[in-house]
């Protein structure tokens, strides 16, 4: 189909989180002209960079639902994608622990439900010693359910790898580009961004996460509402990593619709997450950390796993769920993924909360299926499914490191001491294909500034690289969003 014109596309995807980027990656296999519009300066600044990073097995969700089916499917496809895209991943398995008989009963229900959904290997373990054997450190539990299909991975690196690989395969990314207006004329969607730039596309995909109901309204569908629900986290020093083998979850609470409860989750890089909480809030981008919740996270996390101290916390943060149900409503609501009947070729994705991350590849394939019903998709001959960007130095063997450092000074120079990130990796991050240029973009791509000193050592070094090698002026440095300036100017005139 491929209409002409620079800002004219076959497919316009609004929202560059994991969902938008997974769709972009999946569709970039075909001869299509695709654009992704992302209002933030980078792709993982929304929910996709702020979650537990768990590859869910699929036992929580109602059999027959999209959540259940796409989670189980997504879990399988994701393993392949993670391999191709070199995303940090660990096949840890997971345990849900029960402290009383009522909870044990709930475990049995979950197991049945999981089996109905096609989840493999679920096992209920009754004797306390065995609970401890599978997951050392769980104290006081009378039983647990072990799920071998659950795993952990880096959600923001997945999102970045999807986006950058899609970009490599021809998808155009517009960052700092908030779509403010949509009109449909002669069957073509006409989009306008905040700066008045115009774009056209034949298909329009709403992947705007917590903003999906508002965006849907903008297109003319008023049927949805999203209730933002914040989840706060504590992040623990990776010194504790050897003590936590796998995610430990409580039996899900009934209170907040589908909330999985405060859990402990290792990350593939080592730091441990405690959280998330669940609280409905007004502002869909209020990523606050609150003293009450931080204390509650500590208490609830400590109850499950009494191995951490308050002083092990290196960072707090929060993410926001796109809940389709209001506070107090405990009914099950499914993902909405469909072409809107009243507006042909407008594909709506609403309420993509957990397990949205896990389901992302399956969601992307489902969206492709919707398009395929109306369009003939021809595969691109030179599609590159693999992520072409560099290696993580710390993951190489010492022999390989020695060799690389001997060949290139940038591999030898360590910029981030906590995570041992080399100058080469920083430079690759700065030169990322999407052109994302904030400090947070460098942080997400490299892990520099994410360790226990939180940039105390490497921030000035990264700033120096940006200044000396990329000509940054004081006003060019932004932490994340536009307006998050680092410097008010120079101390003195440069000589």
């Amino acid at each position, binding site marked *: 189909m491929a209409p002409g014109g620079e800002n004219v596309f076959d497919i316009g995807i609004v929202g560059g989180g994991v969902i938008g980027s997974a769709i972009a990656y999946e569709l970039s296999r075909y001869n299509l002209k695709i654009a992704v519009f992302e209002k933030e300066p980078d792709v993982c600044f929304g929910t996709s960079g702020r979650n537990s990073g768990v590859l869910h097995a699929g036992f929580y969700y109602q059999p027959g639902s999209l959540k259940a089916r796409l989670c189980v499917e997504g879990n399988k496809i994701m393993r392949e994608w993670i391999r191709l895209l070199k995303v940090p991943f660990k096949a840890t398995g997971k345990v849900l622990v029960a402290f009383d008989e009522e909870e044990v009963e709930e475990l049995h229900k979950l197991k049945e439900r999981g089996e109905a959904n096609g989840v493999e290997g679920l096992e209920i373990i009754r004797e306390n010693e065995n609970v401890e054997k599978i997951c050392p450190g769980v104290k006081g539990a009378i039983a647990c359910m072990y799920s071998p299909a659950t795993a952990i991975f880096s959600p923001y690196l997945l999102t970045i790898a999807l986006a950058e690989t899609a970009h490599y395969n021809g998808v155009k990314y517009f960052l700092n580009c908030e779509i403010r207006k949509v009109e449909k004329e002669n069957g073509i969607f006409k989009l306008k961004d905040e700066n008045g730039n115009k774009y056209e596309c034949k298909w329009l995909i709403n992947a705007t996460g917590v903003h999906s109901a508002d965006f849907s309204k903008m297109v003319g569908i008023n049927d949805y509402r999203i209730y933002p629900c914040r989840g706060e986290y504590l992040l623990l020093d990776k010194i504790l990593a050897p003590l936590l083998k796998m995610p430990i979850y409580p039996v899900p609470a009934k209170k907040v619709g589908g909330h999985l409860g405060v859990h402990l989750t290792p990350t593939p890089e080592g730091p441990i997450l405690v959280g998330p909480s669940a609280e409905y809030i007004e502002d869909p981008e209020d990523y606050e950390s609150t003293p009450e919740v*931080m204390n509650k996270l500590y208490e609830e996390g400590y109850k499950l796993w009494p191995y951490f101290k308050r002083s092990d916390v290196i960072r707090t943060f929060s993410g926001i769920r796109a809940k389709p149900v209001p506070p107090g409503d405990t009914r099950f609501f499914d993902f909405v993924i469909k072409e809107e009947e009243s507006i042909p070729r407008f594909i709506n994705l609403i309420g993509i909360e957990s397990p949205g991350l896990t389901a992302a590849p399956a969601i992307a394939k489902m969206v492709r299926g919707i398009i395929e019903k109306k369009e003939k998709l021809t595969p691109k001959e030179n599609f590159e499914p693999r992520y072409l960007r560099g290696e993580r130095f710390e993951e190489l063997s010492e022999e390989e490191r020695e060799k690389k450092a001997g060949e290139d000074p*940038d591999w030898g120079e360590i910029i981030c001491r906590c995570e041992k990130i080399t100058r080469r990796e920083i430079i690759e991050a700065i030169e990322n294909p999407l052109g994302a240029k904030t400090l947070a973009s460098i942080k997400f791509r490299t892990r520099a500034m994410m360790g226990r000193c939180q940039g105390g050592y490497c921030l000035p070094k990264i700033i120096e690289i940006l200044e000396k090698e990329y000509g940054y002026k004081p006003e060019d440095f932004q932490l994340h969003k536009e307006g998050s300036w680092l410097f008010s100017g120079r101390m003195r005139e440069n000589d």
Partner: protein
Amino acid sequence: MTERDVVIIGAGPAGLACATKLKEIGINDVLLIERERKLGGILNQCIHDGFGLHNFKETLTGPEYIERYLEKLYKLDVEILSDTMVVNLFPDKSMILSGPWGREKIRAKAVVLAMGCRERTAGAIWLAGTRPAGIYTAGVAQRLMNIDNYMVGNEVVILGSGDVGLIMARRLVLEGARVLMVLEKLPYSSGLPRNIVQCLEDYDIPLYLKTTVKKVYGKRRIEGVEYVRLDDEGKPIPGSEKFVKCDTLLLSVGLIPENELSREAGVALHPVTGGPIVNDTYQTNIEGIFAAGNVLHVHDLADMASMEGELVAEFAKKYLEGNLPKVDSWIDVKAGAGVRYVLPHKVSRKIDVNFLFRVSEPSRNRYIIVRDGNRIIKRRRVINLHPAVMENIRVKADEMKDASSLEVMVE
């Protein structure tokens, strides 16, 4: 793998002093490793004066103080490897070095840890609210301003009254910023009394004790903080919250000895100091690994860090020559009433020891006492005690040779 006699990790005041001293007393095979291009450690960014009062009997800036050591170092021809980070340290005293020149594994007969310390961060103090730009630790702001030529903001609130924060308060005012207030959760400042006078009082910057930041506002750049008074238990007093507009928040909430490498090598750390547990020869639990300076415990004066480095040089030499006293039983040194920690943590009773310690709270007209059970070994009157100021008391080997326990306390 090359073998060295002594490798010193870190070329701040402690490492520099240790390296020069070792050469002076006849140890030739000394390698000083520094991850920065420039030697001198934290003092390179300390352009204020007040250094060298003990060691040079004059008041110098950080870079001037360092210059004195560098002159000696070059004259003595100490081997220096700068731009080189020690990335791993193993219990057998081998280590991996990494730098723009490449990567290499070497091994030392003796290792001196002199890696200094790092700052506590917003996450470490559970800072509540949003995470906008404009929140810096004081040391990072100091480096960005004094070395990298960047102004970090215009309207500043400082949380914590550590020395770095106090010095930065003055520095920011001198550069035309408005420093609105310094907040400290304790009932007393955690910085040196002289810095309270010279950096805050002289510039009319208010210090609010028993007060902390309750919440940070702002999504992009920080827009203000809500601060709150604390009661005697350190709990926020409801209703005492106030908001202050600012575009910058500096944190000066404590320093932590940088012991990632030490830990990897199996060096046991002390829960209070955060540095290695050492005996009276400044040797850690791993034979041949010594520690000096801020990596061992946070010093308020660079001169003291240097002196510790020199002391360790003497012990490292004795160690290499097999001349450290043979000890069958160490005795632990306890921090008694009013004392937060005492160093060294273990003594042989075979050599004289200058005990270094910090008190738990400010007080006046007290006695410092070293005792063995009820037997008082040493007692000295002091007029002023402050947690920010490191105290010391000397005890001769003779005086403690019959001791079966040791405790340092304030009465």
